[in-house]
C-alpha cells in the first residue's frame, strides 16, 4: 500500500515538477537549435526536464522514507509582510518616503498578534524621520520626499 511518509519531500517534489514543467511549457517557443548551434531554448529545456526528474525522485522518496511533517504556514505574518512590501512599491512614487514608511510600519506591526497602537505610532514616526534623515539627507538617495500628482 502506498502511504505518505515524508510530506515535506512530496510537497517539494510536486513544487519542482511544477516549476520544471512551467520551464518546459513557457520555453516551448524558444528555438532549440542543435548541440552544435545551441538555440536560446536548448539549455533551459534541458534544465527544466532535469528539474522535473529531480522532482519525481524527491516526491517518490516521500513515499518510501519517513520524514518530518509540513508545518502549517501561519497566514498572518506571511500575508501582512508581503502586503507591506507591495504597498511600499505602490505608494512610494505618489506619496513620498515619510508617509509610505508610516503606512508600511503599521501594516508590518499587524503581522504579529495584538500590536500596541501607541507604540506602533511612535515607532512609525521615529522610522519615518530616521528614513528621511538617513536615506534622503545622509546617503543622498534620489527618493521622493513628498507626494507628486
Amino acid at each position, binding site marked *: 500500500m502506498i502511504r505518505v511518509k515524508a510530506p515535506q519531500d512530496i*510537497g517539494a517534489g510536486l513544487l519542482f515538477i511544477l516549476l520544471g514543467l512551467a520551464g518546459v511549457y513557457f520555453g516551448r517557443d524558444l528555438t532549440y537549435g542543435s548541440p552544435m548551434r*545551441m538555440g536560446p531554448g536548448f*539549455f533551459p529545456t534541458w*534544465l527544466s526536464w532535469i528539474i522535473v526528474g529531480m522532482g519525481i525522485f524527491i516526491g517518490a522518496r516521500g513515499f518510501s522514507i519517513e520524514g518530518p511533517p509540513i508545518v502549517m504556514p*501561519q497566514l498572518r505574518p506571511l500575508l501582512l509582510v508581503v502586503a507591506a512590501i*507591495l504597498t511600499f512599491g505602490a505608494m512610494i512614487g505618489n506619496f513620498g*518616503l515619510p508617509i509610505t514608511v508610516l503606512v*508600511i510600519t503599521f501594516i508590518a506591526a499587524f503581522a504579529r498578534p495584538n*500590536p500596541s497602537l501607541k507604540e506602533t505610532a511612535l515607532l512609525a514616526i521615529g*522610522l519615518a524621520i530616521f528614513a528621511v534623515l538617513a536615506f534622503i539627507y545622509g546617503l543622498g538617495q534620489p527618493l521622493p520626499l513628498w507626494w507628486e500628482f
Partner: protein
Amino acid sequence: MDIISNLATGFGAALSLQNIFFCLIGCFLGTLIGVLPGIGPIPAIAMLLPITFGLEPLSSLIMLAGIYYGAAYGGSTTSILVNMPGEAASIVTCIDGHQMAKQGRAGPALAVAALGSFFAGTIGTIFVAGFGPILSAFAQQFNSPDYFSLMVLGLTTAVVLAHGSVVKAVAVILIGLLLGLVGTDVNSGTTRYTFGVSDIWDGIDFLPVVIGMFGVTEIIKNLESKEYLRTPIKATLRSIWPTMKDFHDSWPAVLRGTAVGSILGILPGGGAVLASFASYTIEKKVAKDPSRFGKGAIEGVAGPESANNAGSQTSFIPLLTLGLPSNAVMALMMGAMMIQGIQPGSAVMTSRPDLFWGMVASMWIGNAMLVILNLPMLPLWVKLLTLPYRLLYPAILMFCVIGVYANNNNATQMVIVAVFTVFGYILTRFGCEPAPMILGFLLGPLMEENLRRSLVLSRGDPMIFFQRPISLTLLIMTACVVALIVFPAFKRTREVAFQEE
C-alpha cells in the same frame, strides 16, 4: 619576494583615508546589523549591499569586506551572549561560548574570539596572497569545457559540504540556474521567460532576489516562531579582558583552528562551516580533559572562531581566481562585484591588479578594524541585543524595501521582492534550504555560455568534456565527491556533523 611587493601594491591602493573610513563604516554597520537577534550574516550582508553600490569599485569592495567581517563577528556575539546562532558556522561557538557567558565570562569569550579571528584573518590573508596568483595563473589555461566542468564540480561540492538534504539542494540550484537565464539571451537576442515584463528584459535583478529570499523570508520565519517576540533577551557583560590563563589555554587552539580553517576554506562548499565543526572536534580530541567541553572551555571558542574566520578568508580564493562562489556569502560578494562591472575570475588579477590586491589588503584591514572597533564597543553591542524584536522587524523590513527601491527607483522591484519572499518561504516549508539557489542564479548564464562554446568547439560532441585533461580531472573529482555521499561512512559523519541544527 613577490607576495610582499604585491601586498604593498594592495595596501597602497586600499589605504587611503577615504577607504579606511568606508571600511570602518562597513564594519560598524555590519556588526550593528549582524548582532541583532534573528539576523544572520547572509541577510545582514544582503540588506547592506545597496549602500555600497554608489561608491567606486575599490571603495565599494573594501566597504563590503568590512560589512562581511562585521556581520560575521556580530553573529558570534549573538551566539555567545544569547545562544542564538545566526548561521551554521556559529553553532559550535554557542556550545562553550554560551556556557562561558552564563558563568559571567562573556567578555573573555568575545575577546578571545575577536583576537583569534584577527590572527586567523591575518594568516588567511597571507594564504590568499600566496595561493591567489598560483591558482590564477593555472586558471589562465582553462578553456570553455574546463570552466563548465569546474562549475559542475563547484556546485556539487557546495551541495555536499553544506547542510540539509543533498537532492533537494541540487534541485534548488537547478532552479537557480533556470532563473538566472530569465531575460535576453545574449546570442540570439530572444527574450526568455519574461512574460512581457520589460523590467526583467535584462534579467532578474540580483538585489530584490536576495533581499526577498534571505532578508524578508527570515523576518516571516522569526515572526512565526514566536520565540523572538518574547520579552527582551537578558545579556550581561562584566569584564572584557581575558586572564593570562585564558591566553595560555587558547593560543594553541587558535593556531590549530587557523590551520584547519585555511585549508578547508579553499574547498568549494561551506568551507567556514566545515572548518568550525572540524576545529571543535580536534580541540576536544587533543584536550587533556575533554569533559570540560560543553561546560565553558575557552578552547572551544577560540579554535572554531579562528577556523571559521580563516575559512571565510580563504573561501575568497576560488571566487577571486576562478570566479566560482563557494557558498551563499561568496555569491553575495560575487553579485556585488558584478554590479560594479567586475566579473570575478583570473582576469581580474591581470587586468586590475590594484583591485585584486586592494581587496586582499582590505580583508586584513577589515579584520584589524574589527578588533579596534568591536572590543571597546562591546557594551554597546550588548545593549543592542536587548532590543525587542517587535520593534526591530518593522525597521528591518523598511531597510530592505528602501534599499531595493533606492537602487533604481523602480516599483516593479517590490513585486520581485514579494515573489521571492513567498518562494523562499515555500522552500523552507518543504524542508529545502534556499541559500544554494543564489549560486545557481549567478552561474546560470556563465554555465550556458561555456556549454555553448564547448559544443561549438567540438561540433556538438559532448565527449569534449572527457577529452580535455583539465576538464576530465575536474569531472573525476566531481564523481569522487558524489561517491562520497553514497559512501555510508562519510554519510554518517556528515549527518553527525550537521545534526546539531
